């Protein structure tokens, strides 16, 4: 009896230790990556990097000013069309959808999340680039938007479902119509949560490269219209990373560091919004 007891206690100890070990093994590379990235990138991040265009091959220096603006412009345009669609789709699922249709929509949203980013790129290429006969800012923004929508729809639905039912009933009871209740009461109450979802979707697409390869395409200069190819940070990092020049590698590290910093900043803001919301919630 005693030996059985000891045996299972030993097994317990071993297995729990293994789980701990695995957690450490997984997290060490993470910190390793950050240290590596910072040590490689920090020396090349300077004012020139943010204000200058890339220099031609062979000339040292230059920056990624156009790529940084390009990425910001692309994610702004992508949100411009994708956020309303994603949010309203979430509203539909939570407030209006009947069971069968809602199930289908949820499933397609999950499918859309799972579609490989390169396939989204091919789709946007066929849908926009070929008819317009040019790589363009617009096609890149559309490709990124397709990737944003599913990651907005489901969280929005969750957030709206959490709005207390009494709020809806109170609004309807004083004679406010259903559409108005949805927009002015329900959506407004769920707003911090939805904003968090939108920011996380933005963080997710800001580093996407594959959908931009043959839509935004990249550009070594400033783009002057929405129908021209445009530079983006991930694209620039890619083309510099696979090039054989040391100076370009340095720039790529700097670009990677700036890109990660941007993504973490967006994630951090979304966390702060959520934290502020919970503080507010506990207040009443």
């Amino acid at each position, binding site marked *: 009896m005693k030996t059985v007891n000891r045996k299972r206690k030993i097994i317990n100890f071993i297995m729990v230790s293994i789980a701990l070990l695995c957690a450490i093994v997984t997290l060490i590379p993470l910190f390793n990556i950050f240290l590596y990235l910072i040590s490689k990138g920090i020396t090349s991040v300077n004012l020139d990097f943010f204000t200058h265009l890339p220099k031609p091959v062979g000339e040292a220096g230059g920056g990624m000013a156009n790529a940084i603006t390009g990425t910001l412009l692309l994610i702004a345009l992508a949100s411009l069309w994708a956020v309303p669609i994603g949010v309203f789709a979430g509203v539909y699922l939570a407030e209006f959808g009947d069971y069968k*249709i809602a199930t289908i929509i949820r499933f397609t949203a999950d499918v859309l999340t799972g579609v490989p980013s390169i396939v989204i790129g091919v789709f946007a290429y066929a849908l926009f680039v*070929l008819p317009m006969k040019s790589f363009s800012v617009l096609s890149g923004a559309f490709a990124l938007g397709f990737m944003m929508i599913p990651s907005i729809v489901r969280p929005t639905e969750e957030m709206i479902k959490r709005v207390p039912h009494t709020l809806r009933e109170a609004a309807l009871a004083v004679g406010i119509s259903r559409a108005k209740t949805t927009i002015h009461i329900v959506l407004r109450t769920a707003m911090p949560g939805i904003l968090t979802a939108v920011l996380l979707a933005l963080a997710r697409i800001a580093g996407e490269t594959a959908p931009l390869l043959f839509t935004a395409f990249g550009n070594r200069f400033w783009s002057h219209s929405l129908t021209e190819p445009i530079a983006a940070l991930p694209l620039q990092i890619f083309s510099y990373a696979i090039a054989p020049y040391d100076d370009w590698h340095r720039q790529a590290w700097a670009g990677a560091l700036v890109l990660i910093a941007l993504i973490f900043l967006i994630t951090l803001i979304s966390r702060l919004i959520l934290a502020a919301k919970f503080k507010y919630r506990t207040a009443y």
Partner: protein
Amino acid sequence: MRRFKEFLIEKIILLNGFACILFVILIFFFLAKDGLTLFKTVSPWHFLFGTLWNPLAEPPQVGILPLFLGSLIVTLGATVISVPLGMACAIFIGEIAPRWIRELLKAGVELLAAIPSIVIGFIGMTMLGPIVKNLFHLPTGLTALTGSLALAFMAIPTIVSIMEDAISSVPRSYKEGSLALGATHWQTIHRVIIPAASSGIVAAVMLGIGRVIGETMAVMMLTGNASVLPKTILEPVRTMTATIAAEMGETVRGSEHYFALFALGLVLFVITFFINLAADAALHQKQK
């Protein structure tokens, strides 16, 4: 007028609700329209089971078997590495770790998930490649194994966060009941919690695989891109995603090469569709 406005708002919401369905159909339609044109000149058998991918040859060879096997070997490698590690991590975070460590690890995993694949690929090129090369005395460090390692790293956050959700949603009373009967912590995890969370765990694995198979940039930078039939995991391979990414920009519209790349995209779409279907089915089983 007011009635009309009401009507309009509700219809707009309805329309957006259907957007996801529309987009999935559109993606399928656009891929199928050009992808299926390929089969006017090439038999589906040759496309799916041809062992030569050389679309610039005369006549073009568009057998995707080497690419499919390339994707498969990288995905299998990544799955074998990431599932046990991810599961152990999820168990540790969800069951064993004290509260403050749990919050810390969850934030860490979230950050890990946010690292773009292009950055993982770049770090893999300079860090992982040389290690693999020296460890196995290979002529090049860019092999299927290198890709698998990097992809495992990208799949782990997905696996951990979904599994952890599944594990922490097991009712507390199960755990308490098991402990009250005298089971050790590990026995409780192994015999009670994991079986109770099994559908979520299966879904996590499926979605992790889905993420790995669709990965493009890191794979393109790390696997060496040789479109040959892979024999071992220590050889350069080329995946389906990397092929599209590398070749789409330089093909002529309407050529066999162009149609073949769309057909390849269609194959990828169908594969990820069924992986999602399986994950969905696993999750719905739980709800019953």
